[in-house]
């Protein structure tokens, strides 16, 4: 394998060289849950807190200017990273969940007079069965508030979106289609163009949950052509507490504010207010300043390594993992078994050679306590998807730029051991 110097990259992540109690090395295969942080991000955040910290926007002194500049500079970096036509289209949120809630709140909101966001009985919202709860529950709320109907694409046995009823599902009544750019369980990279084309035909807006895509491959919003994308900092070597909503400027202008408070206003009287333009209209209160700055540095880090190189490395690792896991009898991958249109998230169920189901919580416990292997077990905030496959839970290994084939080999050895314990 070439293209990316993984040993050099691993040195940037201090935690990867630590030992767990009992002298176990750490094998971190849970980046789809949350990624580790490079020293560059940690140091930049420490430096800002140590030497430059004050509030942003409203502090008229030297530190205020430095803090504001660093915060807004992070916005510029993120805008460039995702190819946003304007920096004002990048809104800082707490996480991807807040970003999606912000958009969902604009629909059927009496404060919003724009026809495209009108939502009521007879109107439809379309999502998919493979969504993370963060791209399901906000839309359930919107449907409940407005009387609109929530509908969804099914998922095929292979773990792809079932688009066979696309033209019926997305129709003249559809106001918005929201779906995962890449599944956090199946690893499936969804095909955007057919859904987007149909949404455009019927005049529906399109939101992508890109939480599992932006960290792993080049993403250019202009090229995507959708209306909104949401993603989160902590899955892309940045800190937690900072997420991003990107939206087309003219849509953001048409949307009502989400949270009310400081910094989002233009002028306030006792009985009414006018609002700042985007992005500040959507950033009420003191924002996560240091976290935004940390995310800016995370984006610098990923850009330096190179997003195409990261994508290629993960592609190779994923192929290696799928091959290695397929050799374990009793292991069933939930999701595509080939690397085509697929990312480095591999979820599976495991049986003993005798055909006895081993519960994912037992798999995760032994991998962790015996081998120091961190995976995620459970429904991964995608319960409906697990119900679709008739299973309560899966074990999930999720790969990132700092993972190696040796770590995948260790996972395979660990799984064989788990089978032995339960055999």
């Amino acid at each position, binding site marked *: 394998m070439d293209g990316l110097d993984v040993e050099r990259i691993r040195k940037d992540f201090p935690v990867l060289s630590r030992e767990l109690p*009992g002298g176990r090395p750490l094998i971190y295969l849970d980046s789809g849950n949350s990624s580790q942080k490079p020293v560059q991000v940690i140091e930049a955040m420490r430096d800002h807190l140590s030497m430059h910290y004050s509030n942003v926007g409203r502090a008229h002194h030297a530190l205020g200017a430095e803090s504001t500049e660093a915060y807004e500079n992070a916005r510029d970096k993120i805008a460039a990273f995702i190819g946003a036509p304007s920096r004002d289209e990048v809104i800082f949120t707490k996480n991807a969940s807040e970003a999606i809630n912000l958009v969902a709140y604009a629909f059927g909101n009496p404060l919003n007079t724009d026809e495209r966001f009108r939502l009521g009985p007879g109107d439809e919202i379309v999502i998919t069965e493979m969504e993370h709860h963060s791209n399901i529950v906000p839309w359930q709320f919107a449907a409940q508030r407005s009387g609109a109907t929530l509908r969804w694409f099914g998922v095929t046995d292979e773990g792809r979106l079932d688009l066979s009823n696309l033209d019926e599902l997305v129709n003249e009544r559809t106001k918005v289609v929201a779906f995962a750019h890449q599944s956090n369980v199946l690893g499936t990279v969804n095909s955007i163009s057919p859904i987007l084309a149909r949404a455009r035909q019927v005049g529906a807006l399109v939101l992508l949950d890109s939480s599992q895509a932006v960290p792993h491959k080049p993403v250019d919003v202009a090229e995507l052509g959708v209306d909104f994308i949401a993603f989160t900092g902590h899955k892309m070597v940045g800190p937690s507490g900072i997420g991003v909503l990107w939206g087309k400027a003219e849509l953001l202008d048409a949307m009502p504010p989400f949270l009310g408070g400081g910094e989002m206003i233009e002028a306030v009287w006792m009985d009414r207010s006018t609002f700042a333009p985007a992005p500040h209209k959507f950033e009420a209160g003191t924002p996560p300043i240091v976290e935004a700055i940390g995310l800016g540095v995370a984006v610098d880090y990923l850009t330096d390594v190179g997003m195409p190189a990261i994508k290629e490395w993960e592609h190779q690792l994923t192929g290696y993992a799928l091959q290695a896991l397929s050799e374990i009898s009793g292991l069933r991958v939930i999701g595509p078994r080939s690397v085509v249109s697929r990312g480095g998230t591999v979820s599976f169920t495991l049986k003993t050679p005798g055909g*006895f189901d*081993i*519960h*994912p*919580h*037992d798999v995760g*416990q*032994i991998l*962790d*306590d*015996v081998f120091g292997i961190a995976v995620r077990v*459970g*429904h991964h905030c995608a*319960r409906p998807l697990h119900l679709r496959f008739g299973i*309560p*839970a899966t074990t999930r290994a999720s790969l990132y730029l700092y993972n190696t084939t040796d770590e995948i080999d260790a996972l395979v050895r660990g799984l064989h051991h788990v089978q032995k*314990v*339960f055999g």
Partner: protein
Amino acid sequence: MIAESMYQELILEHYKHPQGRGLREPYDAEVHHVNPTCGDEITLRVKVESGKVADVSYEGQGCSISQAAASVLHELAAGSTVVDSLAVVDEFTRLMQGRGTVQADEEVLGDAVAFAGVAKFPARVKCALLAWMAYKDAVVRSS
């Protein structure tokens, strides 16, 4: 190698060959308990006849710890008296909530002492207690 000590042979044996599994008639009370953090669940019925536990029947899904705990509970409670079985529940609860520092009373607990290692794993204590809490609830409701 701490987890290995949690997965005692006896626990694995009960997991693979659960005792008294399946919901049976007649019963005085039925309860359904879930552990929302991991999705483990159990439906449990009790039949009490003049102070004696005539039957504990159950159906559930979850990890080895939660399922084996239900099986061991069945063995200990069915055929015992309500008073004795609740004493076992109390001792088991004390052991599970003792963070690994409680010395179990083997006289009272019998096979359930095999779960002692689970107490060191705070995230798994709820798994072990799921069926036992359901049983306590069902007994209260049956009277």
